[in-house]
C-alpha cells in the first residue's frame, strides 16, 4: 500500500500544567497515563490475590487492618466466603481489563505507534484524550464498588447470568456492586472503541514517506491487529453489559428464565437465556485474550530483534501468523462453553478452530527459536524478559492444547488446570511483555536509564517465582482441584494443602520482588543515568529522535524511511545495523 501524506495540521504545543500533564492531546502523555493506570491496577490486583492466597492456606487467621477496612466482608479480619469471591472478581476484572488491555496496547501502543510510523501524533488526538479519561472513569466506577455497604460483586470477572442478573437476592455484592461492575465495563468499552479507532486510522493514514505497511515494526503490526480485534470485540461486550443492566434495573429478561426461586423469592422474570450471556461474553472474551497477548508478542519480537542483532527468520510470516490468530480468534469462543449445556455438536465444531490456532502460535514460537540460532544475543533486563516470555508462551500454549479438546475438558473444566493455563499466558507471559517493553523503552520515554542490576534481579526472582506459583496449578487441576472455591473444606483437598502453601509462599515472595521494579522505575526516573538517543542500537524510528522526544516527535521534520526495521548484522556506518531512516545502501553479505 502506498504511504500517505502527512496531514496539514497537528495540535499546538501544550501550554500549562493541565494541558501538558492532565488533559493532554499528546499521544506520549496519554500513553504514560494509560501505563500509570495499569501500574496502579496491577498492584491493586496483586494485593487482592495475596489476600486470596493467604485465606486459602490460613483460613482461620485474621488479616491485620482488613477488619477495619472491610468490617462486613472480613469481620475482625476473617475473610468471609463472599469477600473472597469479591476479591476474586475484582482481581480478574482489574487485571484483564485495566492492566492487560491498558499497558501493552493502550500504554505502549499509544506512545510508540505514531513514532514508529513517523507521525507527529495520532489521527484524532481529542478522541485519544477522551479514550484515556473514559477508561479512567470506568476505573473509578469499578473501585467505587469496594466502598459501598454491600460490597463488590461476587460473580467473577465473567459475571455469568442469572447469578449476575437477578439482583441482590442472589447474595451479597450482587446488588449495587454488580451494577457498578456492569457500568464500569460498559464505560471501559467506550474508551477502548475510541482508542481502537485511533490506532486503525493512524496506522492506515499517517505513515511517513517510505513507510510501507511491511516496513512497520512488528510491534506496530501487533497494535494494529489488536485494535482491529478490539473494535469488533468491545462492540459486542458493550451491548451485553447494557442488556445485563436492563435485566437488573428495568425488569427485562434477556438472560433470566421464569420460575427461579432465589433466597426464597420467586423471581419475576420470564423468557431469558443464561447461555445468551455466555455467548455474548465469550464472543468478546476470547478475542480479548488475544488483545492481551498480541501486543506482548509484538513487543517481545521487537525487543528480541534488537537484542539478537539479527533479523527474524521472516517478519512477514510472523505478521501473517498474528493476523491468522486474529482471524481464528473469532471462531473459537465456544471452547469456554464445552460443558455449558450448549449443543454438544457445537462443542466439537468449536474445538477444531481452537486446535488450529496451535499452528500459527507454533509458527511464531518456531520463528523466535529459529531466529535465536546464530544470533548475537545481548543480555539485558529487556531481553531477559523477552526470552522469559518465549518460555512462558510455550508453557501456557501447551496447557491450552489440553483444554481445546472437549473430551479432556469434561475432566479439566473449572479446575485449577484452567487457572494455571490462563495465568501462564496472561498473568505471566503478557506481563513479561509489558516488563520487557518497560525496560526497553524507559530510556526513550524518560531520558534516563533504569538500573540493569536491579532489573536483572527483578527478572530472576520473577521468572523462577512465577513458575513456582503457576506450574503447580496444573498439577492441582489434574487431580481435580476445583476453582473459585473460597475454602477447601473437603477431605479430598487435605492432601493438596502443602502444594497450596508452596504456591502461596511463592506468590508472596514473587509479589514482593515487584517492589524492586517499582523502586527501579521511580528512582531511575529522577536519578537514573542520562540516556542517549539510541541506547540499544535499534533501527526503528523511535531511536532516531531524542530521549525523551519533543512534543511533536520529529521536531517538525517529516522522516523518510528507506528500509525495514530488521537491518541488523549488516555492515553500516553505525556498526552492525542500519536505521530505517538512513539513506545508506545496505551492503548485502
Amino acid at each position, binding site marked *: 500500500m502506498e504511504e500517505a501524506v502527512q496531514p496539514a495540521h497537528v495540535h499546538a504545543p501544550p501550554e500549562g500544567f493541565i494541558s501538558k500533564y492532565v488533559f493532554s492531546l499528546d499521544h506520549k502523555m496519554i500513553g504514560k497515563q494509560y501505563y500509570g493506570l495499569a501500574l496502579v491496577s496491577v498492584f491493586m490486583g496483586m494485593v487482592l490475590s495475596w489476600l486470596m492466597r493467604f485465606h486459602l492456606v490460613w483460613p482461620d487467621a485474621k488479616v491485620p487492618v482488613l477488619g477495619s477496612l472491610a468490617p462486613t466482608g472480613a469481620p475482625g479480619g476473617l475473610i468471609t466466603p463472599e469477600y473472597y469471591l469479591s476479591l476474586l472478581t475484582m482481581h480478574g476484572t482489574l487485571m484483564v481489563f485495566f492492566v492487560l488491555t491498558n499497558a501493552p496496547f493502550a500504554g505502549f501502543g499509544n506512545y510508540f505507534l505514531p513514532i514508529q510510523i513517523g507521525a507527529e501524533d495520532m489521527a484524532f488526538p481529542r478522541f485519544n484524550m477522551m479514550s484515556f479519561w473514559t477508561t479512567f472513569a470506568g476505573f473509578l466506577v469499578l473501585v467505587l464498588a469496594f466502598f459501598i455497604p454491600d460490597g463488590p460483586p461476587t460473580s467473577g470477572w465473567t459475571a455469568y447470568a442469572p447469578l449476575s442478573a437477578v439482583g441482590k437476592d442472589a*447474595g451479597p455484592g450482587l446488588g449495587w456492586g454488580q451494577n457498578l461492575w456492569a457500568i464500569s465495563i460498559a464505560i471501559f468499552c467506550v474508551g477502548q472503541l475510541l482508542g481502537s479507532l485511533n490506532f486503525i486510522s493512524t496506522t492506515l493514514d499517517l505513515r511517513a514517506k517510505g513507510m510501507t505497511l511491511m516496513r512497520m515494526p512488528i510491534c506496530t503490526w501487533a497494535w494494529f491487529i489488536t485494535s482491529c480485534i478490539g473494535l469488533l470485540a468491545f462492540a459486542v461486550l458493550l451491548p451485553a453489559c447494557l442488556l445485563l443492566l436492563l435485566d437488573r434495573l428495568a425488569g427485562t429478561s434477556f438472560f433470566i428464565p421464569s420460575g*427461579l426461586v432465589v433466597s426464597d423469592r420467586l423471581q419475576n422474570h420470564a423468557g431469558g437465556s443464561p447461555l445468551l450471556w455466555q455467548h455474548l461474553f465469550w464472543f468478546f472474551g476470547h478475542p480479548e485474550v488475544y488483545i492481551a497477548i498480541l501486543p506482548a508478542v509484538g513487543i517481545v519480537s521487537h525487543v528480541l530483534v534488537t537484542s539478537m542483532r539479527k533479523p527474524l527468520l521472516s517478519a512477514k510470516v510472523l505478521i501473517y501468523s498474528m493476523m491468522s490468530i486474529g482471524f481464528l480468534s473469532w471462531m473459537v469462543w465456544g471452547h469456554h462453553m464445552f460443558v455449558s*449445556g450448549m449443543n454438544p455438536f457445537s462443542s466439537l465444531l468449536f474445538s477444531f478452530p481452537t486446535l488450529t490456532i*496451535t499452528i500459527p502460535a507454533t509458527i511464531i514460537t518456531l520463528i523466535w527459536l529459529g531466529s535465536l540460532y546464530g544470533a548475537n544475543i545481548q543480555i539485558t533486563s529487556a531481553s531477559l524478559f523477552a526470552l522469559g516470555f518465549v518460555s512462558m508462551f*510455550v508453557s501456557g500454549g501447551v496447557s491450552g492444547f489440553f483444554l481445546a479438546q472437549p473430551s479432556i475438558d469434561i475432566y479439566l473444566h473449572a479446575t485449577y488446570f484452567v487457572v494455571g493455563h490462563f495465568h501462564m499466558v496472561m498473568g505471566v507471559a503478557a506481563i513479561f511483555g509489558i516488563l520487557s517493553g518497560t525496560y526497553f523503552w524507559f530510556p526513550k520515554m524518560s531520558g534516563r536509564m533504569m538500573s540493569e542490576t536491579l532489573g536483572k534481579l527483578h527478572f530472576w526472582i520473577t521468572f523462577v517465582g512465577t513458575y513456582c506459583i503457576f506450574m503447580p496449578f496444573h498439577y*492441582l487441576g489434574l487431580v481435580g482441584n476445583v476453582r473459585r472455591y473460597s475454602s477447601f473444606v473437603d477431605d479430598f483437598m487435605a492432601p493438596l494443602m502443602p502444594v497450596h502453601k508452596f504456591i502461596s509462599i511463592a506468590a508472596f515472595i514473587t509479589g514482593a520482588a515487584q517492589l524492586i521494579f517499582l523502586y527501579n522505575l521511580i528512582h531511575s526516573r529522577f536519578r537514573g543515568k542520562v540516556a542517549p538517543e539510541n541506547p540499544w542500537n535499534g533501527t526503528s524510528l523511535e531511536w532516531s529522535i531524542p530521549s525523551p522526544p519533543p512534543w511533536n516527535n520529529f521536531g517538525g521534520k517529516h522522516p523518510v524511511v528507506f528500509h525495514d526495521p530488521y537491518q541488523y548484522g549488516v555492515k553500516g556506518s553505525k556498526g552492525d545495523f542500519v536505521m530505517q531512516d538512513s539513506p545508506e545502501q545496505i551492503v548485502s553479505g
Partner: protein
Amino acid sequence: MGKFFAIILVVITLASAYPIVTHKFVQPEDISTHGHAIDEQLADTMAEGGFAFVGAQLLLAFFVWKFSSRKEGSKVTHLPGGAKLMVATAFILVGTEVLALGVLGQKAWADVYFTPPKPDALQVQAQAGQFAFYFRYPGADGKFAPIHPDKIDEGNQNYFGLDPANDVEARDDIVTAEMTIPVNREIHLLMHSKDVGHSFYVRELRIQQDFVPGLDLSLHFTATKTGKYEIVCTQLCGLGHYNMKAYLNVLPQDEFEKWLKDRAAEQ
C-alpha cells in the same frame, strides 16, 4: 548471564516435568464405562504436549546458551531452512498431530453426548440450588411429579416444590440429600436448577455438566465400582459455592433397593 538463563530454564523444565513423569498428580481412579477413552486422550495429549514443552524449552535454553555473550566480532548466521522450515514443521508436525488428536478425541466426547440413554436406565433427578444438591427418585409410579417453584419450602424440606396435596404422583416421590445408585446400571440423570447456574462434577465418573436455569439437561453414565464419591459444584453460584457438594454412593443392587425403601419410609 545467558548461560545462567539456560541453566535455570533447564532446571525449571526438568522440575516441571518431574511430577508428571513420576505420576505424582494423577486423576482419581476411573469408575465409569466411558472414562477410559477420556483418560487415554489425556495421556496421549500429555505425552505430545510434554514432548513439545520439554523440547521447546530445552531448545530455547540451548540457543541462549550458545548464542549469547559471544566473543567480540562474532558473525550472526541464519538457520538453514529459514522460515520455510519453521512453517513446514508447524503445519506438518504440530498441525497434523493436533488435528489428529482432535478427530480421535471426538469418540470419547460422542460416547458421553451422542448416544441416547438406554430405555431401562434408572432415572434420577438432580436439583442444584444455592448451595446444595437434592435428588429425586420417581417412586413406585415411575413418574416425577411436576415442580412448582412457588411451593418450594426448605424449612419443611420441600426442596423441589412438590404439591402432594394436589399432585397424586408427588406422594411417592423420594427426595434425598445423597445420590445413591446401583453399580453397573445405567443412570439417566435429569438436571434442574432452582436458581442460578451450577454444575455437576464427579471426578471419578469423568462427568461434568452445567445446570442451566430454564433448560432441561440430562446426562447418562454407568458406575462400575461401589464406593462413596464427591459430587461438587464447579460453576460459581454465589457465596456458598465452596460448600456445595453431595455424596454419590454406589451400592450393589440389593443394598441400593434397601436404601431406597428406607428413604421412601422417611418421606
